[in-house]
């Protein structure tokens, strides 16, 4: 219980005293209730926040793509069209929910929820700030990799259950792509686990600091390559361009969600946009210093939380922008090239990085590149 979100707030004396006086007034220990209430409030807040981020993601994608292609983009609903995602959401909810004939009803209903469940479960461990992290699991990184694999099952079942050749092809491609690219992602993350000696997000972030020279990306040459391996493989895992073969518009209509309508289609789209946020957030936490403020400014106080949150969101949204930028710049890969990139390039490079990091730890006693230059 101490490592959930309530544990952070109980470190402060005034909250502790308030709970103690409340408990003595009622004659019933409120500590447990406080933990549960804080967890529920945090969970609801993060879910609402991320649903908004997913919705704004669709808006950002349309606006940025319009910019890149010298168009205007959505500009009717609200100032600069920023409420477009709400209009889209209402439209999706009022659309008819069509079930294709011959579809597997049970799996057709289940698939989008598996996707959403897999994506939202990862937010149990993602650290937005020192306090705003639902649980600080000791195996947080491992948990995130494990639970995110449910998305692959959801995509695969969505493709299968629709009883359509396009969906089936998209689902097969999606599942093959996701389980292949899990390997370079996991091995690149393992090199960071090797450097920091922990599987907990909080401890990995605490070993870095606010300034770039202490980030793990600049720790040694191997982690520098490792960041790009993680980012490229992460793009492929979220089925984003140039790896969006599962939903390739020009060949498969829209892949595994061809037959989905209304809110079920919306759930698939939302899962995809939030997954980009997850991949960006994990890259930021592991390689780019996470929520750290320069010089551990106000570390461990309540006042630092909004600043830390802003720092984390700023870095994550920058990577989010890069993901969208890549989509509208590069053409789609061919299926065999996709597998070649994964198995012949990214996986060997990731393994090389892991071994390189191990040698660096032994030879230079775990000091970073900057430390070696300065001392």
């Amino acid at each position, binding site marked *: 219980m101490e490592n959930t979100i309530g544990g952070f707030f109980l470190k402060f004396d005034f909250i502790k005293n308030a709970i103690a006086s409340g408990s003595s007034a009622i004659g019933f220990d409120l500590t447990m209730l406080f933990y549960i209430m804080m967890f529920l409030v945090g969970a609801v807040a993060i879910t609402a926040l991320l649903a908004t981020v997913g919705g704004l993601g669709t808006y950002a994608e349309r606006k940025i793509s319009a910019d890149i292609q010298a168009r205007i983009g959505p500009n009717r609903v609200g100032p600069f069209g920023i409420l477009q995602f709400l209009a889209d959401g209402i439209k999706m909810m009022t659309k008819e929910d069509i079930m294709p004939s011959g579809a597997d009803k049970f799996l057709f209903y289940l698939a989008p929820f598996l996707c959403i469940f897999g994506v939202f479960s990862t937010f149990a461990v993602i650290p937005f700030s020192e306090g705003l992290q639902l649980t600080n699991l*000791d195996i947080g990184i491992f948990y995130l990799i494990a639970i995110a694999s449910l998305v692959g099952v959801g995509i*695969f*079942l969505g493709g299968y259950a629709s009883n359509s050749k396009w969906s089936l092809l998209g689902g097969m491609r999606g599942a093959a792509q996701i389980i292949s690219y899990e390997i370079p992602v996991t091995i690149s993350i393992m090199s960071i686990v090797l450097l920091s000696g922990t599987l907990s997000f909080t401890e990995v972030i605490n070993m870095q600091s606010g300034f770039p020279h202490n980030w793990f990306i600049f720790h040694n040459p191997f982690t520098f390559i490792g960041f790009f391996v993680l980012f490229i493989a992460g793009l492929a895992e979220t089925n984003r361009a140039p790896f969006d073969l599962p939903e390739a518009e020009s060949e498969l209509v829209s892949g595994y969600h061809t037959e989905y309508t209304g809110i079920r289609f919306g759930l698939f789209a939302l899962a995809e946009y939030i997954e980009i946020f997850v991949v960006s957030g994990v890259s930021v936490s592991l390689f780019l210093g996470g929520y750290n403020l320069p010089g551990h400014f106000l570390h461990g106080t309540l006042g630092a939380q909004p600043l830390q949150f802003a720092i984390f969101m700023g870095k994550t949204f920058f990577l989010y922008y890069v993901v969208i930028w890549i989509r509208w710049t590069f053409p789609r890969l061919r299926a065999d090239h996709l597998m070649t990139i994964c198995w012949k390039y990214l996986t060997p490079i990731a393994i090389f990085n892991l071994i390189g990091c191990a040698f660096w730890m032994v030879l230079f006693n775990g000091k970073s590149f900057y430390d070696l230059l300065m001392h």
Partner: protein
Amino acid sequence: MYYWILFLTSALLTIGSSVLMLWTKNLIHSCIFLLGSLIGIAGLYLSLGADFVAVTQIMVYVGGIVILMLFAMMLTGGKDFVSKRQKILDLIPLMGNKKSLIWASLVAFVFLLSQALLLMKIFSSVKVLDEVSAYSPSVEKIGELLITSHELAFELSSVLLLGALVGAAIIARPKKGRGN
């Protein structure tokens, strides 16, 4: 209290989806119920305080095995795999005939009896985490044990996995002199 809720929901999920897995006639549905059952088992591990084992369960079975099973069914035509019913046992979807069922129940009876005798002592001493001790992280302990007292088993299993990998590569290798 908290661990009891976790234990009860996980146990219900495990047993319920196992029964549904056996009951359903569609092989793909059966696979999805297996997924639920495996997640339930992860919950059971969690209620015993084995967090690392629980996450490994999800990682290996949900992320790997279930997807591979689905793949195998899809590539071999999943829709045609609807289990065939026997005439006498029309109400119960079971694979096999009368003779095999009688043998199977006999074997199962003997097996259960011996297992029950063996496991009686273990079951009577297993307690949910609340009663044993507070939660403590288990990654470090597992890691230490793997490279000290259980090193041989660890290395042997890695050799086994390497063997499987090499074997798969040999099977999949294109044969020489047999066309392109």
